[in-house]
C-alpha cells in the first residue's frame, strides 16, 4: 500500500500531469460535479457521483469517424483517426469502473471498435472507494464493492491521506513514477475504512433488491408482463436516463453535409427516442411502452444473456436521481421481478 498526505495531493496531481493529462471530478458552480482537466490550483471534488459518467473518455457523446471531400465526381476518403496520448482518469467510483467492463464487452469484441480501443488502451483509471454512498446507490446487488473499486490503481481517501494500490501493469507504471510523493505504508487505515464502508453498505435502503428474476433466459418470463403498461405510463420519452447512464452504449451514425463533403460521425442515441433505430421499413418499436421495456430488458436480460451473466447496470443511481418523473430501474425490478426487496 502506498500513501500520500492530503496536504500533498496537489503535488501528486502535478506529478501525474507531468507525463499525462489528468482528469478528475471538479465542482461546478451549479452544485454538480463533472470530470474536467486538472491544472495547478484546480480542486478535487468530494462529490459522490459526477453528473455525467466517465464513459465520455472512451465513448464520447459525438465523435467523427471519417470525412469525405468531394470535388466534381471525385470523392476523397479522409481517415480522421488519431493516436491517443496517455491520460489518467482519477477518482472513478467502483460502479463507474465496472461500467468500463460492460462497455468493453461491446466495443472490444470482434469486430473491435478501433476508436474506443485506442482511447481505452491509453486511459489509466485511478478508482476511489466510496465512504458515503447515497440512498440511490445499489452497486452491491451487482457484486460491486464500493470499498474495493477496481481500476489500474485503487484509491482510498481518509481524512488526512490518500492510499493507493496498483492493480495492473499500467497502474504499476503510474505509481512507479510518483515515488517522490508516495510512501510505503501498512494496510491498517484502508482495512479500517473497508470495514466502516461494509457497515454502511449493509444499511443502504436498496441493499436487498434481488436480481434473481433477471438474467439470461428470462425473456419469455418478463417480456409479456402486464406491469410494463403502468411502469411506462408516465415516461416522457426523453433520454436523460440513457445519457447519464455509465453503461448505455447505443449510438447512431450520421452524415453532416459540409457543403463540399461529408463528416461522418457517431453520437449517443437513446432507445427511449421515437426515431431510434429507424430504418427503411419504419420504426420497430412504435410505442413508448416498447421503448421503455427495451431499455430495461437490455440491461437486465439481453445483455447478461450475451455476456456470461454480467448485468448491464452497475447501480450508480444516476437515473434514480435524474429521471424527470422518478421512474427507474429499481422500480422496474421491484414490479417486474415481483420482489419488494424488503
Amino acid at each position: 500500500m502506498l500513501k500520500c498526505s492530503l496536504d500533498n495531493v496537489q503535488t501528486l496531481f502535478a506529478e501525474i500531469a507531468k507525463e499525462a493529462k489528468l482528469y478528475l471530478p471538479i465542482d461546478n458552480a451549479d452544485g454538480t460535479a463533472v470530470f474536467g482537466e486538472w491544472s495547478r490550483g484546480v480542486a478535487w471534488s468530494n462529490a459522490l457521483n459526477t453528473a455525467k459518467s466517465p464513459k465520455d473518455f472512451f465513448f464520447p457523446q459525438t465523435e467523427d469517424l471519417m470525412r469525405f471531400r468531394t470535388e466534381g465526381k471525385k470523392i476523397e476518403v479522409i481517415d480522421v483517426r488519431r493516436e491517443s496520448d496517455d491520460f489518467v482518469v482519477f477518482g472513478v467510483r467502483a460502479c463507474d469502473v465496472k461500467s468500463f467492463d460492460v462497455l468493453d464487452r461491446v466495443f472490444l469484441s470482434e469486430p473491435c471498435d478501433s476508436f474506443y480501443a485506442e482511447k481505452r488502451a491509453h486511459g489509466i483509471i485511478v478508482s476511489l472507494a466510496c465512504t458515503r454512498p447515497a440512498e440511490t446507490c445499489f452497486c452491491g446487488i451487482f457484486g460491486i464493492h464500493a470499498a474495493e473499486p477496481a481500476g489500474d490503481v485503487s484509491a482510498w481517501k481518509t481524512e488526512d491521506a490518500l492510499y493507493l494500490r496498483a492493480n495492473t501493469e499500467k497502474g504499476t507504471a503510474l505509481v512507479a513514477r510518483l515515488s517522490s510523493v508516495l510512501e510505503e505504508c501498512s494496510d491498517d487505515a484502508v482495512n479500517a475504512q473497508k470495514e466502516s464502508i461494509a457497515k454502511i453498505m449493509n444499511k443502504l435502503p436498496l441493499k436487498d433488491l434481488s436480481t434473481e428474476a433477471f438474467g439470461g433466459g428470462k425473456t419469455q418470463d418478463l417480456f409479456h408482463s402486464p406491469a410494463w403498461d403502468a411502469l411506462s405510463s408516465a415516461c416522457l420519452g426523453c433520454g436523460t436516463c440513457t445519457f447519464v447512464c455509465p453503461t448505455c452504449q447505443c449510438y447512431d451514425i450520421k452524415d453532416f453535409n459540409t457543403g463540399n463533403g461529408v463528416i461522418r460521425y457517431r453520437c449517443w442515441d437513446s432507445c427511449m427516442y421515437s426515431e431510434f433505430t429507424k430504418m427503411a421499413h419504419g420504426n420497430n418499436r412504435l410505442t413508448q411502452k416498447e421503448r421503455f421495456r427495451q431499455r430495461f430488458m437490455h440491461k437486465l436480460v439481453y445483455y447478461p444473456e450475451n455476456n456470461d451473466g454480467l448485468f448491464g447496470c452497475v447501480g450508480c443511481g444516476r437515473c434514480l436521481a435524474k429521471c424527470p418523473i422518478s421512474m427507474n430501474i429499481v422500480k422496474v425490478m421491484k414490479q417486474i421481478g415481483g420482489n419488494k426487496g424488503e
Partner: protein
Amino acid sequence: MQKITREQLIDQASELLANGTVSTVLGWGAGEFGYDVTPTLFKTAEEMQNGFVFNDFCGANFSKYLVSKTKTLEGKLLVFLKPCDTYSFNQLLTEHRFDREKVYVVGIPCEGMADIAKVKEISGEGISSIASDGDRIVVTTLYADAPVKIDARNVLAERCIHCKSKKHVAYDTLLGEEGDVVASARFDEVTRLESMTPDERFAFWQNELSKCIRCNACRDACPACTCETCVFDNPKSGVENKSPSNSFEEQMFHIIRAFHVAGRCTDCGECARVCPQNIPLHLLNRKFIKDINTFYGEYQAGAEVGSRSPLTDYTTEDLEPSEIFVGRNEHA
C-alpha cells in the same frame, strides 16, 4: 408544508370514482425514498390508498399528460392541478390539444414545492426518510445522528420562490382556499442578465448551454411542446439532430425552442426542473415573457382559454420592428 392532505385528495377522488364522474385518476405515486414520486394512473380508491402520495415533492405539472392520456382512456380523467399547472391547462385548451369534456380538474392549493437537491445540500446524501412536519421538512440520513429539520421555505424550488399565482384559472372542483395572482420577483434575474454587456451575456449562456447533454428532457416535459413530431426528431426536416455537431448547434436548439414557445410559455418552470445539468432554461423563456410585456403590454399565457398571444395577433397599435429595436436597445 402543504395545507391540503393526502387524505383530502383521496376522499375527493374516491367520491368521484364511486359516483362514476371519472374513471381514472392522474395523481402522484409513491417512490422508494419519499421524494421520488412518479405521475401515476389510479383506477380505484383502494389503489390510491396503497400507492397515492401528496407531499412537498409533487412538483410535476400534469397538464401535458392530458394530451396523450385523454386519447386512449374510457370515461373521464380526474387530474389534480396546482395553480401554476392550470395556466398550462388553459394554454393547451387554447391550442385544442385535448378534449376538455374528458377531463375533470380538481384544483388543489399549493404552498410551494421543495427541491430535493436543496434539501440534500443541507441534509447530505443517504436519506433514509423524509417527512413534513408543519413548516419543516424532517430528514433522517444514514450519516447524521439526529433527524435534520429544515425550514421548507429555505428549500423551495426556484419556480416556487418566484411563484406567480396562487390562483387557479381552471377547475371543476376546488379544494381548500382560492389564492390570488402574486407579485413575484421572477424577472429580477432577467434584468440582471440584461444589464450585462453583450459579451458577458454571451459568455453566461455559452457556459450554461455548453453543459447540455441533449437529452431533450426540457422539451419532453414542456407543456408548450406538443408537436406530434418535433423538427429535431424528424429526419425529413433537415435540421434533425440527436447530438450537436458543435456548441453553436447546441445553443440553437435551446434558442429555437425558446422562440417556438414564446407567447405560449406560461412560465411553469418544468424545463429547468427536469434539466439533469441544472441549466436555468426558464430564464430564456422569461426574457421573452418580459419583452412581450414591455412591447405589447402585460400578457400571461394561459390566464384564460382562447386568448390570443400578442405574437400571433395583429392590432394597429402593434409596435413597428424599428420601434422594437429602439426598445431593445433601451432594455438590453
